[in-house]
């Protein structure tokens, strides 16, 4: 089986290198976690996969036609925003799938009327429900209490539908629970 993505000795950063060298392969249907301390460069590594950070050295190979969705560590959320959760999930193509009840009850609200945790859940579903082949989740447990984190784990398990997930988190327990494989990341 051909990998969806190959990172071979990847060194990434902005003005200067921040993370790497990192090497890993991603295969269809895998849930892989990138685990590292704060400042290890996990988010920068994800941004290098989406073209938002510079690759200084190493090789990044993507499968032909690979579609990606990226849930950023700090998703864009204007202070005043009339878009509803429904608008957001329609935008990414997640509107074609039936959302779990935890998500469905939030979709009618304006984004600026959701709490931080509710907004996080809607954003994650917008990525998970999209038709992307590879979904990148950057610190998805941000703003979530333990109950919401349990809901997020259910959401990932039920919403992934055999696609590939790359998760960044500094929470080891969460990574160990949802991921089938863990890649350590250090600066």
């Amino acid at each position, binding site marked *: 089986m051909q990998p969806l993505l190959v990172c071979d000795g990847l060194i990434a950063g902005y003005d200067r290198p921040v993370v790497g060298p990192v090497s890993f392969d991603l295969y269809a249907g895998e849930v892989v976690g990138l685990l590292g301390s704060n400042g290890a460069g996990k988010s920068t590594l994800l*941004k290098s*996969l*989406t*073209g*938002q950070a510079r690759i200084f050295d190493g090789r990044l190979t993507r499968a032909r036609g690979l*579609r*990606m*969705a*990226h849930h*950023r560590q700090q*998703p*864009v959320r*204007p202070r*005043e925003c*009339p*878009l*509803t959760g*429904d*608008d*957001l999930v329609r*935008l*990414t193509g997640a509107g074609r799938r039936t959302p779990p009840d935890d998500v469905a009850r939030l979709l*009618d*609200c*304006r984004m600026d*009327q959701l709490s931080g945790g509710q907004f996080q859940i809607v954003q994650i579903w917008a990525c998970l429900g999209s038709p992307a082949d590879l979904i990148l989740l950057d610190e998805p447990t941000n703003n979530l209490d333990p109950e919401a984190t349990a809901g997020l784990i259910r959401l990932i398990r039920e919403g992934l539908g055999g696609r590939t997930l790359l998760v960044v988190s500094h929470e080891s327990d969460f990574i160990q629970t949802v991921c089938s494989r863990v890649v350590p990341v250090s600066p």
Partner: protein
Amino acid sequence: MLELLLDPLFHLPFVTGLLLAPVAAMVGVYLRLRDEWLAALAYAQLAGAGGVVAVALHAPVMLGAVVAAGGLAVIKGLLTRPGNDHYVIFILVGWGVALVASAFSAHGDMVGKSLMDGQLYFTGRPHLMAAVALIVAGVLCLPWLSGCLLMSRFYPDHFSANGLSARPHQITFDLLVVATVAITTTSFGVMAAFALLFVPAWIAWRLARGWVWVLWLAAGIAVAAYLLSFVLAVVLDQPFGPVLVLVLAAMSLLRWLPMPVPGRR
């Protein structure tokens, strides 16, 4: 009063304005989405300056407005992160150039004054044709453009992550803004064009729940303000631009209505 309103002299300007007002408001919604609301004034001010400079060069006013607004779009594209600070400089340059250029001839002075005053009644058939063309272009490209602009705003790395270029939709939007502002400015005047781009979107942003409703509400507010202003300006024999600005300023109080409650659309 009714006789005055139904005067054939006003038919063409009335229809032109009625077509332009909702288009300008909808474009204003997308400028707000991109945090570029001050760009609306910069575009309007430079379009006005371009119109006055065109008179000095014996060229059509609307052509000058389009070229000047287009110049701003090009400069904006070259700046990697144009912020509102940049737009302030463009506003000041536009204001200064308009006043200096208008001093060169009596005709330039008249055009400059009409662009500042906002005299809708001087619009002619070219404005109407341009407004119709603008609506056709908007209707054709908005379904595609809207999705791209929203994705760019809320998922900034969607395009680079999927090997797609963001340039086509960025350039198309800039062209749409340039055309809208140039035609609206030469029809309504600088400040009235800015007010149409800014105020309806600002009110709708606060009150609407859902993206489609923002667009419809902004367009509805613009049409209501336009109709009221047209009647007031004719009846009170006042320049149209300032009346529209004052009506929109009064309507901005609508922002203080309660926000929509989830579950009640």
